[in-house]
């Protein structure tokens, strides 16, 4: 059976390294450290600036901002997708099934967590939870998929 939307297996190692890099930097950023270096200030295109609908004011489509968040967010998302959707060494229909199962598990758990956040968190705490929630679905998917792969390998009986 053909598996769709998969990168070749050789992408797996670079994906792991990139993911580890962005994951660690992301944690550093979330722990309160600000990456505030002059080279990070760049002119970007903002397609929805805050003054977009103010009469008589020309919207600031071009803005100079710190792109640390942009780089970390895009890097994390792309490396996580690359990691989760690179073919395994022995990619077959069973592995595809595990990947899909991990994906549906992650989606359910992620939205249950979000529902709990809606119930228990308000104001700024809720906004922080929403920010985390953007990335938890990918993290849960990767963790669950690796766990299922590990479990299927560790159940293998020894044979001559």
């Amino acid at each position, binding site marked *: *059976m053909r598996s769709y939307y998969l990168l070749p297996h050789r992408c797996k190692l670079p994906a792991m390294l990139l993911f580890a890099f962005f994951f660690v930097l992301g944690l550093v950023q979330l722990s309160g450290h600000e990456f505030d270096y002059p080279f990070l200030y760049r002119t970007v295109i903002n397609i929805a600036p805050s003054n977009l609908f103010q009469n008589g004011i020309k919207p600031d489509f071009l803005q100079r901002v710190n792109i640390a968040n942009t780089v970390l967010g895009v890097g994390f998302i792309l490396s996580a997708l690359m990691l989760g959707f690179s073919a*395994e060494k*022995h990619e*077959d*229909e*069973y*592995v595809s*099934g595990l990947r899909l199962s991990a994906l549906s598990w992650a989606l359910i758990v992620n939205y249950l967590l979000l529902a709990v956040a809606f119930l228990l968190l308000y104001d700024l705490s809720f906004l922080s939870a929403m920010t985390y929630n953007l990335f938890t679905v990918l993290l849960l998917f990767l963790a669950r998929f690796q766990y299922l792969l590990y479990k*299927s*390998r560790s*159940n*293998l*009986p020894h*044979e*001559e």
Partner: protein
Amino acid sequence: MKNSIKIERAIAGITQEELAKRIGVSRQTINAMESGKYIPSTVLALKIAQVFSKSVESVFSLEERD
């Protein structure tokens, strides 16, 4: 759905690894099928039956709950 892959394998004298190679899947897949944790696609079931020179129905059969 249950299957007799393990028995057929023993009769044919081939390991999980060998069967996996012949039908182009991983050993984990063969193990998962033998322990009833994975139901293969029709394509894979046909390939397995072909290896043992048997019909699909003699290797795979439905259970009460199916």
